[in-house]
């Protein structure tokens, strides 16, 4: 009847397991785990990819507790597929109540445009060259990289007050130059 080598090997292992052969059973479960992992990963949306391992374990558990329902005269892979499918459908049903995909994770029309990023970075370099090097670096550290004023001041070995004044003046002169006068 069945000639598929995977089916024949798994079925032989299953029949031995049903007769109580623990070594065959361990080999069977290990192999099923290897088969099931890609099975679930392929079917899950990326947002739920981390659930694949849970589903593998749930399926192995169901194979164990409900192995009585395997009919020895029928293909084993069909039975296994039915169990795995049931677990997958169950998972989808459970998640469907809050099956929401975060907007930034999806919808390619809103995808981040890297070329605009690079342009902004170059513009920024040009602009910051318009102020003294130390002031430019202080502005970059505090306003762009997100460091605190104290941290930026420590890097340049000046006091926090001096750094604040320097940043303030730098921004003011940049505003005067690029924003059409002080505001």
């Amino acid at each position, binding site marked *: 009847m069945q000639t598929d080598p995977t089916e024949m090997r798994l079925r032989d292992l299953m029949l031995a*397991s049903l007769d109580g052969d623990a070594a065959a059973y361990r080999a069977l479960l290990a192999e099923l785990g290897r088969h099931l992992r890609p099975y679930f990963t392929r079917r899950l949306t990326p947002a739920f990819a981390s659930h694949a391992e849970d589903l593998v374990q749930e399926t192995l558990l169901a194979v164990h507790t409900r192995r009585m329902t395997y009919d020895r005269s029928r293909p084993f892979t069909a039975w296994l597929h039915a169990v795995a499918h049931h677990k997958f459908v169950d998972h989808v049903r459970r998640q469907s109540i809050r099956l929401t995909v975060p907007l930034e994770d999806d919808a390619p029309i809103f995808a981040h445009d890297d070329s605009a990023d690079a342009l902004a970075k170059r513009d920024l370099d040009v602009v910051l060259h318009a102020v003294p090097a130390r002031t430019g670096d202080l502005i970059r550290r505090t306003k762009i990289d997100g460091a605190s004023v104290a941290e930026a001041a420590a890097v340049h070995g000046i006091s926090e007050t001096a750094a604040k004044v320097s940043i303030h003046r730098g921004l003011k002169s940049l505003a005067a130059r690029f924003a059409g006068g002080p505001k």
Partner: protein
Amino acid sequence: MTDDLIARLSADLKPVPPMAMQRRLVLAAIVGLVIAILGAWFILHMLLGRPMGETFGGAMFWVKAGYTLAFGLVGLAALPVLARPDGRVLWPLLAAAALLLVALSLGTMNWMRTDWAMLELMGNTAMVCPWLITLTGAPVLAVLLAALRAMAPRSPAMAGFAAGLIAGGLGAAVYSFYCGETSMMFMAVWYSLGIFIVAALGAVLGRLLLRW
């Protein structure tokens, strides 16, 4: 994680003999039937004062026994298939429908012959018959559903329906020992209704209880 699980599961392995599932279902049906027989004797005979086996041996008695047990057998044929994750079977449902159709047409023919006498349809117990059948079928259904919880039905509702068909059929067969009605139309309508109430109950309960 998964390796731990595999180690634990294989340490827990107990042999499963061939036909273990079928044996468990048949055993559950028998246990339920015994409870139904004892319960029916207590409730119908002791509490309601119905004499047992009043119509025993008459032609209609055997028709009723055959009709109700046929539903039980149809359910019993379907249940081991429906209790599997890859089980799909349709003919028992069609067989049950055909059985009902045959009984209704034979009953209608008899009823016509008696010139549509109301007694032929309603007997004396039409209003309690379906509910008492539900009552006698309930223990069979409960034991079957309990056994099914360890199994893996592809569709919990369908498996519950098949269990309900067994329970309704066996329950109605038990009830027929305490039933004095001898009309074909009565059986075709009220017995069938009782059996299908139990089957529908099984489908609803199956949906709730047999998820896995």
